[in-house]
């Protein structure tokens, strides 16, 4: 039963990973930009929530009303003012820009909030759990995270499939030059895609902060989880990202079941195994390019 429990907890943890990885997947899918500041930005979102709670004694969930839109606006600006210029200089430049952003963010957060570990209050929800059987129970908070991940991914999928802007985004991802001849301002599409990516990573960052502690230097370690979820699931596939997050989560909790020290290592091993055996990702059709 402990193994069943480990898998179950892994699936729920995977929801949070998937939610966190969505923005990375979206930015790569639409713009071919690998955002190396992804992890640090989620930490920034958590610190924003922390500051709001500190100042106004809000609940962590209420801070989302401010933090998510604020990060979306930041994403829009970062794309328009920083990454757009980088893209004109070639595919490598945005990578360097986001790396620089990562370094700047880590140091700015260190300056503003000190290197202490922080946590966001999760309230009663943080400890409440649902007893499934005598030996099996799941935390409500983890269930909520998975539910949010599925809702966000389904919403994004619908947005891309059914709305005019979503179609424009898919077309832009396909051929950024041709869309301009069809009346699409590709810079605007990119900026909105980045805004959505930042909004989802902000949501994930705050939820991460409610689940575990965070400090200004933890971003890159988080980024690796997002990378692994995206690669395991298959680049550019949103449902793949959910599957990748779940696989990573299960690998970590099952690894932890063997020995607590193996949790993160087990995730890395599964990631490497996927890279070797199925580099296009588990959900991508066989034979498609990695």
């Amino acid at each position, binding site marked *: 039963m402990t193994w069943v429990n480990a898998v179950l907890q892994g699936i729920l943890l995977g929801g949070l990973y998937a939610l966190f990885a969505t923005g990375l997947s979206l930015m790569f899918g639409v713009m071919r930009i690998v955002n190396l500041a992804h992890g640090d930005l989620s930490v920034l979102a958590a610190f924003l929530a922390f500051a709001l709670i500190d100042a106004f004694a809000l609940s962590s969930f209420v801070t989302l009303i401010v933090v998510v839109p604020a990060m979306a606006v930041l994403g829009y600006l970062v794309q328009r003012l920083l990454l757009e210029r980088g893209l004109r200089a070639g595919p490598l430049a945005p990578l360097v820009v986001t790396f620089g952003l990562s370094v700047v963010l880590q140091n700015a957060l260190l300056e503003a909030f000190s290197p202490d570990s922080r946590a966001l209050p999760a309230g009663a929800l943080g400890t409440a759990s649902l007893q499934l059987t005598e030996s099996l129970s799941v935390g409500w908070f983890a269930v909520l995270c998975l539910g949010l991940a599925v809702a966000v991914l389904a919403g994004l999928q619908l947005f891309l499939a059914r709305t005019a802007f979503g179609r424009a985004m898919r077309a832009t991802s396909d051929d950024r030059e041709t869309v301009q*001849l069809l009346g699409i301002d590709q810079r605007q599409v990119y900026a909105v895609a980045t805004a959505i990516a930042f909004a989802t990573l902000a949501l994930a960052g705050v939820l991460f902060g409610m689940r575990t502690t965070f400090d200004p230097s933890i971003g890159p370690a988080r980024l690796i989880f997002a990378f692994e979820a995206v690669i395991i699931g298959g680049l550019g596939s949103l449902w793949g990202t959910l599957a990748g997050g779940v696989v990573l989560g299960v690998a970590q909790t099952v690894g932890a079941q063997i020995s607590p020290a193996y949790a993160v290592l087990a995730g890395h091993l599964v990631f490497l195994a996927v890279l070797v055996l199925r580099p296009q990702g588990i959900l991508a059709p066989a034979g498609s390019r990695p």
Partner: protein
Amino acid sequence: MTPVLAVAGLRHSFGSLVVADDITFDLEGGRALGIVGPNGAGKSTLLNLISGTLRPSSGTVLLDGRDISRWPADRRCRLGIGRTYQVPRPFAELTVFENALVAASAGAGLRGSAAYDAAAGALDRTGLRRHANEGAGRLPLLDRKRLELARALATGPRLLLLDEIGGGLTEPELRELVATVTGLRGAGLAVIWIEHIVHALLEVVDEMLCLAAGRVLARGDPRDVLASPAVRDVYLGPELAA
């Protein structure tokens, strides 16, 4: 009456290579201009300068009397310039219908059912309706060319720029294309058509312009232009030799 398109003193160079040199002409609605010239004459470059994928080094492009010389391509498209590429570039991940729908939403600024109708209309006009729900990446070459035209039409253009869309078509297909373009011209669109298949051009265009090395070599009545000695020198299509 203000011409739909007025190009004056258009010039562009890549380094020391001049690809457009002092090009001036205008075009009214309901009229079609054919462009011929040897490879590398700057024909596609001229369309790029008009559609906005290239900005001219100097000179002006006016659409309906508005100076759009410094406008980006997407804005020019929304104002009414539709362009097809010589090598079709469909959005392979989208269906044929979605390809046209993107153009109708963004280029023509239509919403909801109006956008759907415009997209469906563009597919009808180009004979693509039965392929509407197929992935655009799976279309054979000819249908890709049709999709180029359908997409450009769905943006609701006042000026249509066609870059060698006749190449590789069979004779019946070419006749169909000629009929389509004639119909569009009849509906009041201004059309600029670059084409090597001169006999197809002659059926549609009111005027011909011959480019060589970025310069206008001759311009005027299609048959006169083709018959002029200067044009015969630089450009001798197989149809002309016959």
